[in-house]
């Protein structure tokens, strides 16, 4: 019963990935093909400040996106968890609906809003707040906005799950023992909802590294992060081995994060249960 799926995945998932791994050590042919001259030169290129910057920027953007999602998402998830059960179903559904719709079209919608002569600028100018259109589209900021927009539900759902399980009477106990609201939050609520925080962060961070077309469309030609870099190698630059190496690095980053999450999760759930 399992033979078909195993064979399929081995053929179309594992083999291609191994291929990429191998290719990452190969070299670019004169006209863009792959030449089987092996070495670590593709990886070494990443030590070049140009590419290092890209890596750092990518991680930075992902981290910023995650932080913003967390800051916006936590109070929001808390609000959801406070609602009476009947309302909660509906509200959760409302949160999840945008997530179901097409990523591309939603990104496109932001383009409409953020353009030089788009909605936002027209509106702001109409209100007299600014006299000239602000350039929001085609900046790094727009990319972050797009990423936050698209990935917010991924942060909210795990957070909600964690906060919902949290026993709010513990906060009352903390107040009773003299804690201020901020202290109660920091020392009681946050540690106990940490599984949700970590899960949400991972679900936002990893895609932030990989959703290159959002960054492409909203960030313009000036913004290059690792996703766009890989994309470029396989289209314009035709340097497949280099693209493969970049992909390997991206994959390794994702795997490391997931591994840490699994370790943390097992460790933390034991601690919290105890």
């Amino acid at each position: 019963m399992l033979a078909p799926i195993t064979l399929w995945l081995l053929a179309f998932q594992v083999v291609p990935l191994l291929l990429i791994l191998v290719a990452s050590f190969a070299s670019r042919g004169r006209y863009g093909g792959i030449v089987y001259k092996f070495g670590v030169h593709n990886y070494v290129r990443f030590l070049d400040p140009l590419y290092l910057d890209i890596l750092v920027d990518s991680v930075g953007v992902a981290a910023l996106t995650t932080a913003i999602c967390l800051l916006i998402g936590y109070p929001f998830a808390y609000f959801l968890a406070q609602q009476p059960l009947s309302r909660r179903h509906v509200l959760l559904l409302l949160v999840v609906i945008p997530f179901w719709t097409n990523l591309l079209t939603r990104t496109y919608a932001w383009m409409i809003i953020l353009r030089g002569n788009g909605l936002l600028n027209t509106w702001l100018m109409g209100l007299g707040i600014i006299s000239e259109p602000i350039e929001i589209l085609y900046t790094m900021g727009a990319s972050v906005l797009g990423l936050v927009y698209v990935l917010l539900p991924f942060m909210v759902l795990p957070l909600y799950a964690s906060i919902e399980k949290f026993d709010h009477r513990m906060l009352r106990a903390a107040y009773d023992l003299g804690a201020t609201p901020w202290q109660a939050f920091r020392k009681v609520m946050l540690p106990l909802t940490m599984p949700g925080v970590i899960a949400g962060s991972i679900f936002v961070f990893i895609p932030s590294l990989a959703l290159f077309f959002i960054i492409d469309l909203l960030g313009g030609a000036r913004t290059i992060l690792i996703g766009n870099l890989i994309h470029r190698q396989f289209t314009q630059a035709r340097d497949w081995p280099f693209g493969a190496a970049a992909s390997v690095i991206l994959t390794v980053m994702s795997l490391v994060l997931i591994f840490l999450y699994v370790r943390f999760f097992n460790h933390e759930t034991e601690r919290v249960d105890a």
Partner: protein
Amino acid sequence: MGRWGKRLLGLHAWLVFAFLYLPIVVLVAFSFNASRLNVVWEGFTLQWYGEMVRDAAIVRAARNSLIVATVSTIVSTLLGTLTAFALARHRFRWKRWLEGLLYIPIILPEIVMGISLLAFFALVGMRLSLTTMIIAHITFCAAFVSVVVRARLHGLDRTLERAAMDLGANEWRTFWKVTFPLVSPGIIAGALIAFTLSLDDVIISFFTAGPGSTTLPLYVLSMVRLGVNPKVNALSATMLVVTFLLMTIAYLLPMGRRMRRAATGGQDQPGQII
């Protein structure tokens, strides 16, 4: 938490909802806007929808999308369901490995999956076409279907099958009369999710599509790079509504919540995806 704190929290929540829905509303609204520029409202019109339907390129792209989605859905649902059953019902030595293998399409950044398949097809000398795209889609859809069906199987009360056998049904009849009817909502949900994932897919499709196999998202992507375009508005709005409808059906399947709760032995919760 004080009254002001509660008010603030509520305000924050509504702002987040507004943020989530703003682009969608803008997109749909402007698809009916008589003005080309998407800035001021100049009157209601269905002109863009009309143009969209008459555009040969769009029609072709829609046809491709449907073909790819349908074939991928059928095959991946079959594969995924078989896998879910095998995993849920049997124990065997390399179960862990297979489970891990199944998670790869889900957690791997799409761009890495896309380029790896591109490299694979190049290596085996397969030209990019609808077929290669279908293969790619099946690969990630099957994994999702198996997760969804497995979740449903997992929550199913095992004693129901024992009861059927106790009353004289052999394994085959137990499956058809008890197990299958109770799992089928999960299978249908999985199929709908697969269909939507396939319709919406951008990144993997980008790397595995041949020259004549543009799908709707790829069409939108190419158009969007050239700037804002009212036909694309109409197309995007349509795609939004279609995917939204599909997913709503997947969520609110024929089986009422009460029956779901009974079938899972009392463990239905808000936010549960199935």
